[in-house]
């Protein structure tokens, strides 16, 4: 349980990034799969050189840059948002390998942010929770600034935002940068927590992020915005607990991606199945006359 919580708290930062792109910008951003690894790669390289904290910072900034490029592909070169993310995901794979120099790096001997925390009881949990709280509070404050309001409205209604004198392209750039910076920060911390970085560690991350967002919103609610951010963070912890439980039942780790996909499919489909024409609810009541 402790591990599930700790992992959940670290992945929650990634889920909050996905929340920004998926909910506030209304874009499923596939850059996430590679920007997570990008953060981990930067973190690993700097940790090996003895600068674990700088590693987190560089990872965070690199992720932000990756997100900004995805947004530019979409807004300036007019490539569809989904495809922009896919292209970035693919391109970053090579860049990640260049940064790492090899497909995986062990950090067993490297200094990391957790080695300091290990000296106090429950240090890892305190550290990851503290980081999560900082991110939630910062996001909450940010989303309630003038800039944050304009950002949230962009995913809601672009017409209205432009009619209010806001450049929606700039909002997308800022939003995608913040989203991927958070994802990469999560990857950076994860690398140091696991003491290991693998080129493929980000695969499926966007779906895990979506699962956390949806689980959190369904269980813990969406209003007001602070509650929603906390819900997403808790959603990540619940997701880890579900995965942990599935593994305790004896399912192999390789099945977890399938379980994740099923969780997201069910969560996305449920509201549709029980409302609107041709829904299960209607069908169970017989044909509509």
């Amino acid at each position, binding site marked *: 349980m402790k591990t599930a919580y700790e992992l959940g708290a670290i992945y929650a930062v990634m889920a909050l990034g996905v929340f920004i792109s998926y909910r506030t910008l209304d874009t499923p951003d596939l850059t996430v799969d590679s920007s997570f690894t990008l953060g981990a790669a930067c973190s690993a390289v700097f940790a090996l050189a003895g600068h674990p904290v700088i590693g987190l910072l560089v990872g965070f900034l690199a992720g932000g840059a990756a997100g900004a490029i995805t947004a530019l592909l979409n807004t300036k070169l007019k490539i569809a948002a989904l495809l922009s993310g896919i292209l970035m995901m693919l391109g970053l794979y090579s860049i990640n390998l260049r940064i790492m120099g090899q497909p995986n790096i062990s950090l067993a001997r490297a200094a990391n942010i957790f080695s300091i925390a290990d000296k106090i009881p429950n240090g890892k949990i305190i550290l990851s929770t503290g980081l999560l709280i900082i991110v939630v509070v910062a996001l909450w404050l940010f989303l309630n600034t003038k800039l944050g*309001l304009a950002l*949230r*409205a962009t995913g*809601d*209604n672009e017409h209205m935002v*432009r*009619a209010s*004198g806001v450049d929606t392209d700039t909002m997308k750039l800022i939003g995608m940068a913040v989203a991927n910076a958070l994802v990469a920060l999560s990857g950076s911390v994860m690398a140091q927590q696991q003491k290991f970085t693998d080129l493929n560690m980000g695969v499926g991350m966007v779906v895990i992020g979506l699962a956390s967002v949806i689980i959190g919103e369904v269980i813990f609610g969406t209003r007001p915005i602070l509650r929603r951010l906390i819900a997403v963070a808790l959603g990540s912890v619940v997701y880890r607990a579900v995965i942990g439980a599935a593994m305790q039942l004896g399912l192999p780790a390789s099945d977890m991606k399938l379980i994740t996909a099923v969780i997201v499919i069910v969560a996305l489909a449920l509201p549709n199945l029980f409302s609107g024409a041709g829904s299960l609810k209607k069908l169970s009541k017989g044909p509509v006359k």
Partner: protein
Amino acid sequence: MLELENIKKVFFPGTINERIALQNLNLTVSEGEFVTVIGENGAGKSTMLNVISGVHPADGGRILLDGEDISRQKEYKRSRHIGRVFQDPLKGTAFDMTIEENLSIALGKGAARGLTPGIPRAAREMFRERLSLLGIGLEQRMKHKVGLLSGGQRQALTLLMATIVRPKLLLLDEHTAALDPGAADTVNELTTKIVTENNIATLMVTHNMSSALAYGTRTIMMSEGTIVLDVSGAERGAMTVADLIAKFAEKKGRALDDDKLLLS
């Protein structure tokens, strides 16, 4: 205030679907003038508003707002001086955000959007006051999501958002067409009140010929992408809907052909 010089707009140029939406369009609207715009379906009324607001770039001609050529400006830049209310009540507001958040975004027009609090206390007081002037009780619901409002309430809110920073020009694109008759009257009266009190140059597209004559100070009729009739003052004051239809037939040499226009 607003000058359109020889505006031209062609959709799908060079294809089999090529359609000239606007041509030889010239119009001058002075400060405080409230112009109602009517015309058949496809006459170019909405296209004219979209070209002015920058949704579509013009293919020819110049647009001057307060003497400044805005023909090449992007939509969001023009929005700083142009307020808009759309036909679709969903288009003017962010449905998943609260009334006060929507107003705050509108209030930010032209100012830098930095990391300062989204809704300062002073702004909240101002929102409450302005909302109460609408007279539909929205000041009690400032923390409610806009998605919970009716179409009429949303249009009233959008109207307030479009004018909360006084625009040089207000564009209303059939903004009461999607509302029931009662709500349409309320919004029309609010429109007149806000426009006259703030002396805002306004273009209001409507498909209702009696509203076109009842509201505003000047009426123009469009056909085939240009203005065919332009009445104001005493001439307009004495006009009836029947006169308008007759005028159209006289100018175009054919009867007006649009059920929506004739039946409303």
